[in-house]
Structures are given as structure tokens and as C-alpha cells.
């Protein structure tokens, strides 16, 4: 397993300092912006978890960190969606990059679920209202049997433990896949039905 990992992901290519010329575009910045926002989300979320709702609802610093968590989530989702738009329109699944696309798509859906459970665990009247409205839709399709939005403990553990672990794992896998295959080349100027060969990593 170690030999395979070193063969597929040579350590010297994990933090590349050169990139293909076509990567010189602002469109390629949104992936790392998403990761930077995720780091802020995790840091502020950890502070909220350590201190608890009396702190983040009752103190000035708690309010501020609560706001940091909200706005870093807003930026995380906005940057992720713009990154998704860019990858879709450049058909970034070409050249054996299907797994990269799939891990990204699953990370997106997981992020939406994490945001929804976050809304449910604000521990205020807003979140109670959201829970009572959301239960009807989820119960009508049977999900309510396993995922009870009125069960605060379950929602909190989904939001603060299960889903963030999944997001971090998917993000790491996604980035390693990008390192393995390299950044997808641009679409050819004159479209032909020839397959895009997979890159073996960063090229100079």
C-alpha cells in the first residue's frame, strides 16, 4: 500500500511549485479559496463547540465567533459553487478524472447537509421553527425514520462530528486525485472526438 501510494503520488509532487501555463487564470483560484474558507469554518466551529451556546449567544466574543462561523460558511459555499461552475464548463472529468468530479460532487451534497444541520443546531427559536418545517418534507419521503430533525442531539452530532469528518476526508481525497492526474487541460479549440490523455502530475 505504501509503495502504491508513493508510486501514484510521488511526495515531491504533493506541493508543486510549478504549473502548466493554462493554470494561469483566476478560475483556478476558487478551489483553494474553498479550502481556506473550510479551514475557517472548522476553526470557528471548534471554538463554538468548546464554549457552547451560552457563550456564543451571550457574550460579545461569542457573537463574533458565531458570525465568523456563519460568514465563513457563506464564503465556503459560494466559492465551492463557483468552482463547480468552472469545472463543469471546462468538462474537468476528462482524462480519467471522473473520481475527481465524483468526490467533488459528493463533498458538495455533504456540505449542503452540513449547512442544513447547522441551521438546526443554532439553539434558538429560529432553529426550532426550521426543524418543525423541515420534518414534514423529510418524513413524507421516509427519511424521517432515520434522520429526525427534532432530535437535537442527533442533529448536533451529525453537524459537529459525522458530516465534518466526511467533508474533510472527501476534500483530502479530491485534492490527492487532482495531484495524481494533474489539472485538466483546456478544451481543444476545434472540437474533435479524441480522448484526453490523463496527465501524470504537474508538468513544467
Amino acid at each position, binding site marked *: 500500500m505504501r509503495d502504491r501510494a508513493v508510486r501514484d503520488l510521488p511526495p515531491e509532487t504533493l506541493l508543486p511549485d510549478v504549473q502548466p501555463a493554462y493554470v*494561469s*487564470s*483566476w*478560475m483556478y*483560484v*476558487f478551489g483553494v479559496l474553498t479550502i481556506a474558507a473550510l479551514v475557517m469554518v472548522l476553526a470557528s466551529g471548534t471554538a463554538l463547540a468548546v464554549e457552547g451556546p451560552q457563550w456564543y449567544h451571550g457574550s460579545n466574543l461569542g457573537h463574533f465567533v458565531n458570525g465568523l462561523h456563519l460568514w465563513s460558511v457563506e464564503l465556503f459555499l*459560494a466559492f465551492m459553487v463557483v468552482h463547480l461552475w*468552472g469545472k463543469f464548463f471546462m468538462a474537468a472529468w476528462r482524462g480519467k478524472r471522473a473520481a475527481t468530479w465524483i468526490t467533488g460532487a459528493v463533498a458538495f451534497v455533504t456540505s449542503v447537509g452540513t449547512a442544513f444541520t447547522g441551521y438546526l443546531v443554532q439553539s434558538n427559536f429560529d432553529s426550532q421553527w426550521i426543524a418543525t418545517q423541515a420534518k414534514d418534507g423529510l418524513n413524507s419521503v421516509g427519511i424521517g425514520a432515520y434522520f429526525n430533525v427534532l432530535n437535537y442531539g442527533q442533529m448536533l452530532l451529525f453537524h459537529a462530528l459525522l458530516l465534518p469528518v466526511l467533508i474533510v476526508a472527501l476534500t483530502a481525497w479530491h485534492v490527492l486525485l487532482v495531484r495524481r492526474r494533474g489539472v485538466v487541460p483546456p478544451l481543444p479549440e476545434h472540437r474533435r472526438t479524441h480522448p484526453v490523455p490523463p496527465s501524470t502530475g504537474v508538468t513544467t
Partner: protein
Amino acid sequence: MSGLLAALIDLGSGPVYVNWWVLHISAANLVVIGVMVLLFLGALLVPFPKGKRP
């Protein structure tokens, strides 16, 4: 400055919703989506600084 921003973004009155066809969305959410579209177009059109070759 804060007074100007408060006048522009009045949080005292209720939210404004835009209804068109099946779409029912708040004006604030629509603005966010508009900004994201502008960001996407800007990423395509704004020149990226080119470094000097060593």
C-alpha cells in the same frame, strides 16, 4: 458610514421576495447569486498576472 449602510440595508422591515414562475426567492439571496455570477465572469475576463520567466 454605518448609517449609510443601515439606510441601504433596512433590517427593520420584513424581507422582500421575488416571485417569477415557480421561483420564490428573497431579494438578498438573488443579489448573492448575482454577485457569484459576476465573480465567475470576472474570473474568466480579468487578466491573471504573468510572472517573469527565471
